[in-house]
């Protein structure tokens, strides 16, 4: 009877620990699923714009100095991205170490939109007109080394 009782003790311990492991695994799985869904949720972008240059671009610097001096963007931090529908995107940082995103219309030498926001604020700019329908916007969002572009139509129309 001694042998049998020690082996059933071991069984009970194994059962209990495997239940605990199952419970812990379940908690982790649920939390992982939820956080993943949140972080990737959102509509897919219409375009993903890659970085193309980090060389100084004098016209862009001049535009920023004239139109958005209060942002205090650090000129040497500016990086240029592929264009999208008449818009040229540039990213950089300002004197407060905030990431910045700028959309310029080179043809008219105009800063269409510019924004700097301290982390962890999501960095984006919206542009209007310049080749898109009235009431529509393009939302450019900086994600890591890329800029995502999404065309937003009024009233959800596609």
């Amino acid at each position, binding site marked *: *009877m001694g042998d*049998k*009782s020690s082996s*059933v*003790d071991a*069984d*009970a*311990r194994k*059962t*209990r620990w495997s239940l605990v492991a199952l419970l812990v695994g*379940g*908690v982790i799985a*649920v*939390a992982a699923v*939820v*956080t993943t869904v*949140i*972080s990737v949720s959102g*509509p897919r972008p219409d375009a993903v714009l890659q970085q193309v240059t980090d060389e100084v671009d004098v016209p862009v610097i001049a535009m920023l100095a004239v139109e958005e001096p*209060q*942002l*205090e963007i650090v000129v040497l931090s500016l990086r240029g991205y592929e264009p999208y529908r008449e818009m040229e995107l540039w990213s950089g940082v*300002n*004197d*407060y*170490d*905030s990431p910045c995103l700028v959309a310029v219309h080179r043809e008219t030498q105009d800063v269409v939109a510019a*924004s*700097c*926001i*301290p*982390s*962890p*604020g999501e960095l984006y700019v*919206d542009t209007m007109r310049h080749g898109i329908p*009235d*009431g*529509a*916007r393009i*939302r450019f969002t900086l994600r890591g080394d890329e800029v995502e572009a*999404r065309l*937003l*139509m*009024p*009233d*959800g129309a596609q």
Partner: protein
Amino acid sequence: MAGAPLSADAENELRLLRARAYSAESDIQDDPAALARLAELEAAHAAALHGVAEDLPAPAPDASRSHDPFPAERFGVAGLVAGFAAADDGPHESSVTVTGVPDTKSARAVAASLRDWLIATRSRRIGLIAGAAVAVLVIAYAAVWVVVPRPDATLRPVDALPDSQVYRLAAFAEVLEMDTSTLRAYETYRGVEPWSTEDRYGNPCLFVIEPSSDNLLGAVCTPPGAELYADIGAWPYSADHFAEGLPAGTVIRFHLNGNQVDAHVYRGPEMETESE
């Protein structure tokens, strides 16, 4: 080390006594001799089946719970019953441990007893599943709470009517073509007043004014499908009052979130000396 199987007579007697004990019209409580005999037979039956003393007695026997088909419960009840009987009759020849938790088997007994108790009846199984579902929801809610940033302030709608200052300041954003006939007001934050409306294309709009400095701080209209934010910055040398006490470079993001406006403060770097 299995015990000898019960004789056919003993099995019959056990069946009859069980019927008396576990039926809805149980009368066995008034018959201590029958109780004692039932305990003996149950113990012998258990020994014959399992060869070891049976589990911990279950919680106090409930005569009304008689339609439970789960045998372990009965052995538990028998254990308790045997305990009552043994207390009256002195030393008892039985392989059931009548005083409660057997020392050498406490770990197994607790685990098995809990498991059996939890799944014993249908209502408990349903309760177990419901409890697991609640636990999943709590975990999911906690994960969301951790991942999604909480606002510094939640500004609810208020019943304020726009005055002439609001209309005049809103006009500075005429490029947005906002419909100023349907303005909605919200609680203020740091002296900043949020207002919401729509533009002529049906896009929701949010604009923020600072009445004390007579300033339109920001105005935005965004089509559905993207979050509607109006950002204002604490830049040095600006005349805005909301920036008082905030480090330069701070951005306050107002977010039209359903029926409320959330305010998120993204602070600039702290400086050693406060800039004027």
